[in-house]
């Protein structure tokens, strides 16, 4: 009886995971990715200041990554502990970006 109950729970959650990504959602994500890319190319030809453009591109790249990793790679529908396991290491990448750009400015300028 209790085993049955457990079975039902895990089966239901699996069912949820599969039905969450149906063909309709897949095509919706495709259109989002395509439109964001077209938008990026379009604004790159405008006279918007370069600094604004760069930050917009970076923000939109993160938006696109969210849809690719979340929906296409299905991470949004995996267990929460697994999502943390995958995403947390990238804190180190943020740190690396900080060091590289900060130190990179002085590269080759300080006599060795």
């Amino acid at each position, binding site marked *: 009886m209790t085993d049955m109950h457990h079975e039902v729970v895990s089966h239901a959650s699996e069912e949820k995971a599969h039905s969450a990504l149906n063909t309709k959602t897949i095509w919706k994500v495709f259109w989002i*990715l395509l439109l964001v890319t077209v938008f990026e*190319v379009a604004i*790159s030809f405008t006279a918007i200041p370069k600094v604004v453009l*760069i930050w917009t*591109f970076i923000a939109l*790249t993160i938006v696109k990554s969210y849809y690719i990793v979340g929906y*296409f790679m299905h991470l949004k529908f995996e267990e*929460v502990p697994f999502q943390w396991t995958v995403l947390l*290491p990238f804190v180190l*990448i943020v740190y690396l970006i900080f060091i590289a750009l900060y130190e990179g400015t002085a590269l080759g300028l300080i006599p060795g």
Partner: protein
Amino acid sequence: MSSQASATTAPEKMWSGGHSPFNMRWGKMYMWIFLISDAFTFSSLIIAYGALRHRFADIWPDPDLVFTHFPFIHAHVPLMYVGLMTFILIMSSVTMVLAVDAGHRLKKAATLKWLGWTIVGGFLFLGSQAWEWYHFIKGSPEGAYVLADGRFARTDYLEPGILFFNDGTRVVGAEAEALKATAVKNIIGANLKENEYGNTPLFGDFFFFITGFHGFHVFSGVVLNIIVFIMVWRGVLERKKDYELVEKVGLYWHFVDLVWVFVFTFFYLV
């Protein structure tokens, strides 16, 4: 008894036993762990590129003045060709999700169809990248000049006779001819030591290394997809009633698409 224990535990308490915290089979998880390490490799490459581009911002070429070619069009059309490549890769990601979806439903014919289109998309992308590399390496008819005063002047194949500099200034006519006549060096195309796009070999080096490393990932992905296609076709997964292998190569394929999104932003847009 263990069943008793799981009954008394609320399902929300993830770590109190009776529930797999990741609820994932090892093969798929190993693919994820590999992709995390691969993501670190690509991040390091792109961050190194960013740091050096930031350092040499004054001499770094403007990508809109480098990647201007498009097949059969004799004009400067920046971003359109890589835009098309991005479209091809996103499209092949969609067909891959549809293949994984068909696999979940144990539909062999549909899995084969979508996996087949994904392989076609992969070949289209590889072909596009070969075309891009060809034009990058071949360069323009006249290339660029390193002038006697050390300045770096580029030429424009659509406007023969002009010279232009990284800061946007242009020189035409007899003055341009005089500068060319006294130039120290004429660089045509690109290799690992020099390129006609800017006065730094780093631009070409990073271009070859990062797009090459990504292109090799796409190539590996196509090979993996072909192997899985053959396995599905021969009914190996059908007999096991388990299409998780499609999901595993699918993860790899989407990751390759994800990396391209970053390469597209940092090499071509910014």
